[in-house]
């Protein structure tokens, strides 16, 4: 059973006042997320990330397609007991204190009253808000609100947690704290689906990522695999600087330290280079395929179709 299974999910919005036209926000999305996986949903602003999450939460209704969470329709009340959700830039009832807010959400999620208070207190400790007491949320900083947001998403101990831009608008310290919390959830074996446009966070936390742009899925896979698809170069290190003059024409870069040469070469020229080095009696030290960054992959996926169209 997949944790999340999205099939041909589409959403069109009607725009215009008199002559309404349909503007697609999400185009036939197909995606699966395995149980226990941390999945990053990447895309620039307006790509369709929040639309997808809203569809999964039942906040908007799809034009076509369907989605399952833990094997059941995503709107099944049984499913909703097992999922947690943090919206983008959340705002909570600011006249409540953090324990009151969590108690409210716990009640709505069906958490039994016995032991609820204890659970809320330990959760507040876990997100670093154990000392806020009865302070109303209107006096919380943005970082504190985001931590309350994560606490409300997991107050009922869900199996799948959906986070929409959880690091958005936070300072480096706040981002670090939220990243720690997500890592914590990951260590507990929760399935985490989070949307972001901060690629370093996705790179640090995710097992797999998907890139979405203009409502279309542009790529999906394991982070390392995706990074290696973006680079067609290898790094070759050998001893024998005398051989450099014979092979310099096929290198894209080289650096000599004493008798050791560190060079990069496009993969198509790798075999020829190795043959030449053997002929020059250079001693090969290592050959390492180079990986691109997730950012390079992201940029390639969000710009390639525009380039083709142009």
């Amino acid at each position, binding site marked *: 059973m997949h944790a999340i299974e999205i099939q041909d999910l589409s959403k069109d*919005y009607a725009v215009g006042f008199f002559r309404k036209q349909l503007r697609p926000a999400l185009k036939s999305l197909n995606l699966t997320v395995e149980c226990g996986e941390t999945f990053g949903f990447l895309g620039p602003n307006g790509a369709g990330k929040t639309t997808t999450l*809203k569809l999964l*939460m*039942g*906040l*908007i*209704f799809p034009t076509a397609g369907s989605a399952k969470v833990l094997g059941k329709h995503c709107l099944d*009340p*049984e499913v*909703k*007991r097992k*999922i*947690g*959700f*943090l*919206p983008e*830039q*959340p*705002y*909570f*009832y600011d*006249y*409540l204190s953090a324990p009151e807010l969590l108690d*409210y*959400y716990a*009640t*709505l*999620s*069906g958490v039994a009253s016995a032991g609820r208070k204890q659970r809320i207190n330990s959760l507040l400790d876990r997100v670093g808000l154990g000392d806020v007491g009865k302070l109303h949320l209107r006096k919380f900083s943005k970082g504190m609100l985001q931590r309350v947001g994560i606490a*409300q*998403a997991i107050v*009922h101990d869900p199996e799948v947690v*959906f986070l929409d831009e959880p690091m958005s608008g936070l300072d480096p310290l706040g981002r670090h704290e939220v990243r720690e919390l997500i890592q914590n959830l990951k260590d507990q074996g929760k399935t985490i689906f989070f949307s972001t446009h901060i690629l370093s966070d996705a790179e640090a936390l995710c097992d797999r990522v998907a890139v979405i742009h203009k409502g279309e899925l542009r790529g999906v896979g394991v982070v390392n695999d995706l990074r290696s698809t973006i680079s067609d170069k290898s790094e070759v290190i050998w001893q024998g600087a005398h051989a450099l003059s014979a092979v310099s024409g096929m290198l894209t870069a080289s650096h000599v330290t004493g008798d050791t040469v560190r060079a990069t070469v496009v993969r198509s020229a790798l075999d020829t280079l190795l043959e030449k080095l053997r002929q020059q009696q250079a001693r090969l030290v290592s050959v390492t395929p180079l990986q691109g960054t997730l950012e390079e992959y992201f940029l390639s996926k969000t710009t390639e179709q525009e380039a083709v169209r142009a």
Partner: protein
Amino acid sequence: MTSRLSAITLNTFREAVRDRVLYNLILFALLLVATAPLFSQISIDIERLVLVNVGLSSISLFGVIIAIFIGIGLVSKEIEKKTLYTILARPVRRWEFIVGKYFGLMVTLVVNAALMAVGFYLALLITQRKLTGEDGRLFVAIYFIILEFLIITAVTLLFSSFSTPIFSAIFAFAVFVIGTFGEDLHNFAAAAQGITKWAATGAAYLLPNLAPLNVIGQAAHNQPISGSLILFNTLYALVYSAAATAGAVLIFERRNLK
């Protein structure tokens, strides 16, 4: 379901209390008590009449204003601030949210009316130096005012489920004004001809008739209020408010929360 409904109800009431909505009532009660001696200076025959009219009309008007101005934000504020997103992502049905919000505002309005009624009876006591059995009848008028709140809150909620807060306020207030003159609308419909008759008859039955709920004049003159009117008004308010709330639920169930 019950725990979710009561949690939403309690939270809505708590919001009203902590946003200091009820503070105006304490002010009202204090003002009424403080000005009670002035009523004593009016002729002995009409001091009670004036006090009952002013007091009960104030309870009604304050309540309707609160019902409309909190009611228009019940749904739209939750969408605008995205607090609704974290509610509907849980096993909360949309109808539970709407009905919980409705109950929450009704609890606020009943507490509101009760506090005002305490101030009103205190003013009555100061003015007359005693409370009589006839003053007990005024409870019926207060009960009818609460029935009026039931209807106005449901109508406001209905408008707020599809319209902007400002339009919801305008529509709801218009319904309140037309409803207050509901008997006149029925009489006009009976006297009109042609298409005007059809339109007026339709409006008379579609819009709430709040006129039978206004017994302030009768109460002030110590005229008895029949049991059949109490029963009719109770049923009318329950059925009308249930229908309007059901309409709000039907619209909200299909709404995309952009």
